[in-house]
């Protein structure tokens, strides 16, 4: 039942959910949620490859730890940016945040 490709299929579906959300959401917090989904799919891949292809090593697990740390840092900054954007535009819809448009 559990094999490498079942984990890969699961993480692919999660990644595609995140990609769908990235394209469809127009809300900054919704985009953050989609990014977290995609990062999560990536960490499932790291863990699965580590377990099935390189058993007994820890490289994939450490990569997953780094992904979790990076996601935490990114969420912090993202929420701060959302807060600043909301104060400036009174909205967190990405289509209204267009002052830097070329």
């Amino acid at each position, binding site marked *: 039942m559990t094999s490498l490709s079942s984990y890969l299929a699961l993480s692919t579906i999660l990644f595609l959910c995140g990609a769908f959300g990235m394209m469809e959401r127009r809300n900054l917090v919704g985009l953050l949620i989609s990014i977290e989904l995609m990062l999560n799919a990536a960490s499932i891949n790291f863990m699965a490859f580590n377990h099935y292809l390189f058993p007994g090593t820890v490289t994939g697990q450490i990569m997953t730890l780094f992904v979790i740390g990076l996601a935490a840092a990114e969420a912090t*900054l993202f929420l701060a940016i959302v807060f600043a954007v909301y104060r400036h535009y009174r909205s967190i819809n990405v289509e209204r945040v267009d002052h830097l448009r070329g």
Partner: protein
Amino acid sequence: MHDFLFITGGILALAGGLLAVIARNLFHAALGLALTLTGTAGLFIPLGGELISVVQILVYLGAVAIAVIFILMLSPPFYLKRPHRSGVKIALAVGTVVIFAIPLWRAISSTCEVANRTAQSPTVAQIGRSLLTEFVFPFEIISVLLTVAIIGAIVLARDLPEDKDIVHDVSTSREESK
């Protein structure tokens, strides 16, 4: 036991992922993300990552809880009618998903299947030792990154009265120069 964890975690993760992108209400989407993260933490256990599973729940779910508070502050009241999604955006998003999906499925189906090895899952001591010897440089970099993120978040989210003064000074000095 491992099959059970895989099926349960997988169903939780998929249901949460679908809820996170389909839910119209952002609050429900954040709860769906929390469900996905919990399911993923369950998936890490049969992969020999008990420590990672605990870290996932401690760090990631904590971050999501904070995000939920932000969503409650920033979203309009729940009794207001949510705007409908436009069909064009959904069609474009589905197209993007299909474009991503085809090569990914091909890559998965061409992955050589490996027998489920019963190797010892790495211990916490092994992870810690490797983190402080082999991976000490990225480890230190990530601590610097977290510090920078904290300081940056404070700077970004702070109300900036002195900036308004600067803008005011510039505008008055322009008027004076005229």
